């Protein structure tokens, strides 16, 4: 018999999930989209993903070990998730050095400078992505068209994204019905047959990931659904008003980073609100900002900016939007 009994406060049992398992769950949910990316973009997708993940993990390790001289927590998987998401958010022909720079900004500035996991106000992968977009606008907006392994990493055939074609066309006085002939049809968009960031194209694969995360209770439905519904309603109204100037809602949902953003970027635990009510407001805000940037802004796509802007409101929402308290109907007297 052991000589001593342990004494501690209740509860004495714990659920099976821990931080590492949740992060692994997110990684598993990203696999269908990763497979789709490799299918569409071949070697480029593989090189970009490996570079980004390795760089993120190495930077986190180096910063924790040599700069902060504290415990190293790369095994919790959060750096791997950041690396995967950064890769998903860049074109598949992005030069390796630029990816490494993006990883440094993501992990170094986006995450560790605020105190590491749990303390960063902005989604680290998006901080890296937007940094690259502003610093390397040409490389970041040169989109390979899906051609699998037929072309290599550096010599990929490039073209415009559907959103880019629409934006450019409207500027040149063309109408939506004319432009729709120049972009893939909705079914192709759903499966991801279009130019774009490496991991954002395959809506079908991303939705599989969403179903898995909901099933595993890694995230709740509030954020993805509120983003998707808001974008659908907002673009739907515009489309009903003037279908020659505004694309239909399904087109908006299936193009660009809406699915990747709604399912994986906006739902980042650390940078999203804590209470369901606030999650809905946050999601609606992202949806509205995305449409405003896409339709009225200078950029063809606005999901990244919309998420980063709403990230900034999260502390405010956490401070003022409280969960429904049990026993709130307090009558004085």
């Amino acid at each position: 018999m052991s000589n001593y009994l342990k004494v501690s406060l209740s509860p004495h049992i714990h659920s099976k999930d821990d931080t590492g398992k949740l992060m692994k769950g997110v990684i598993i949910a990203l696999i269908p989209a990763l497979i789709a990316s490799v299918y569409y973009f071949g070697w480029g997708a593989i090189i970009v993903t490996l570079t980004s993940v390795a760089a993120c993990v190495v930077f986190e390790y180096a910063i924790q070990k040599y700069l902060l001289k504290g415990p190293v927590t790369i095994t919790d998987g959060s750096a791997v998730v950041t690396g995967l998401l950064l890769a998903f958010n860049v074109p598949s022909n992005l030069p390796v050095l630029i990816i490494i720079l993006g990883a440094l900004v993501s992990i170094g500035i986006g995450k560790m400078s605020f105190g590491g996991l749990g303390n960063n106000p902005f989604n680290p992968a998006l901080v890296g992505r937007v940094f690259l977009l502003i610093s390397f606008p040409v490389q970041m907006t040169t989109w390979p068209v899906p051609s699998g392994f037929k072309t290599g990493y550096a010599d990929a055939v490039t073209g415009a994204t559907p959103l880019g074609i629409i934006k450019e066309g409207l500027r040149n006085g063309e109408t939506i019905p004319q432009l729709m002939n120049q972009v893939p049809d909705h079914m192709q968009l759903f499966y991801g047959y279009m130019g774009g960031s490496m991991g954002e194209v395959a809506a079908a694969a991303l939705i599989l990931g969403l179903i898995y995360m909901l099933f595993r209770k890694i995230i709740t439905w509030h954020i993805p659904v509120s983003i998707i519904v808001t974008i659908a309603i907002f673009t739907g109204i515009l489309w009903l008003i003037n279908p020659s100037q505004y694309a239909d809602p399904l087109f908006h949902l299936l193009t660009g980073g809406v699915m990747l953003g709604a399912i994986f970027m906006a739902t980042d635990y650390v940078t999203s609100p804590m209470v369901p009510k606030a999650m809905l407001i946050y999601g609606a805000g992202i949806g509205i900002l995305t449409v405003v940037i896409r339709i009225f802004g200078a950029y063809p796509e606005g999901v990244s900016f919309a998420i980063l802007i709403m990230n900034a409101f999260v502390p405010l929402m956490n401070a003022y939007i409280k969960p429904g308290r049990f026993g709130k109907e307090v009558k004085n007297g």
Partner: protein
Amino acid sequence: MLKTFPTGGVHPPENKLTAGCKIEILPPPKSVVIPVSQHLGAPAVPVVNKGDKVLAGQLIAKAAGFISANIHSSVSGKVLKIDSHTDTSGYKQTAIFIDVEGDEWVPEIVNGSDPVKEIKLSPEEIVQKCLDSGIVGLGGATFPTHVKLKVPAGKKCDLLIINGVECEPFLTSDHRLMLEKGEEIITGTRIIMKALGVEKAVIGVENNKQDAISLLERLAGKNGDISVQALKVKYPQGGEKQLIKAVTGREVPSGKLPLDVGVIVQNAGTAYAVYEAVQKNKPLVERVVTVTGKTLSRPGNYLVRIGTPVSALIEAAGGLPDNAVKIISGGPMMGKAIGNTQVPVVKGMSGLVVFSGGETERKQYGPCIRCSKCISVCPMGLEPYLLMALSQKVLYEKAGENRITDCIECGSCSFICPAYRPLLDYIRLGKSAVVKMKREKSMK
């Protein structure tokens, strides 16, 4: 339709290993240690001295004031000494040590196991009987029952809820009692109804105890005064406020009592103890304790005398396994880990759970990743992550504003936290500080 409470809750593995084990009677041990404080309120005052001969069922310590409870000897024998002894919570407190000689009971106790259904006593007499017999809430809170049965002037009670939820994993003592003493529990319920003057009672039982639900439904009959409500399995449904919400939809306001929404809740075990006291004249000197754990060779449910050392129960269940690391008095979610096996069985001890290495390990905790799981499981709609942070930073004023005192300490937040953060530990710290602060303020 299965009912449940709407806010929060978790589903820990049920592990009801002893649900099929009949209640076994454990013979009296060689000696017992009976603490004078086994209830909420003032400790009882000993009325026996060293060397006195006592009978089983004899009063040995008297309630000190209104919120207190009588203590009776659970065995016959000689008072060895009145001294301090370590109790379940690890503190020393006064206890009466008795050496057992034979098994003689006070003559007033009605023998025989035939259920007596007719209730002869008046409501006042019932309350007095509960006070005399030292009945306390047996669900774990051990609040003196006679206090609860006296509805204060100006308040109205229209419903009695009997708590047969037993939502804690592992525990089965109430389940077995409902199965084996169903008739007595139904009569006990009617006694409590008479004392309170209510027309209706609902017995709330979780759906993992189908056999108890159908048995009690049959025994309750077609009078319509007592009904059985099946509840969806969810922890902490046995919490008073959660159970009232689940059964009636009424929400006890923050800082108020069940009586403020016209409800009184009593545990199923308490209903049985009330029956024994009123119909059989038998004070509370024994109770059913579930002794369980995956590594015990003979886990079971035992009817045991109050004051019996925990070691005797563990022996009966096959002895402490070599790799045992923790013994919990109560369930694994809210129970207390005890420091040694010489701790005596008390009125509020519903079970003993023995954990072996690995089952109950506390891992090193990491940073909060704001997954908001603690918020989604909190049955009181609080923000455990925030309350922990405020307690750590000694911002008790703010913790009070965020309703830290509403916390029922069910442990769902600590259970679910993927970063293994000790949320409830810090919330307890902050809660006691806020309660103290409020008390000081009201004294000024």
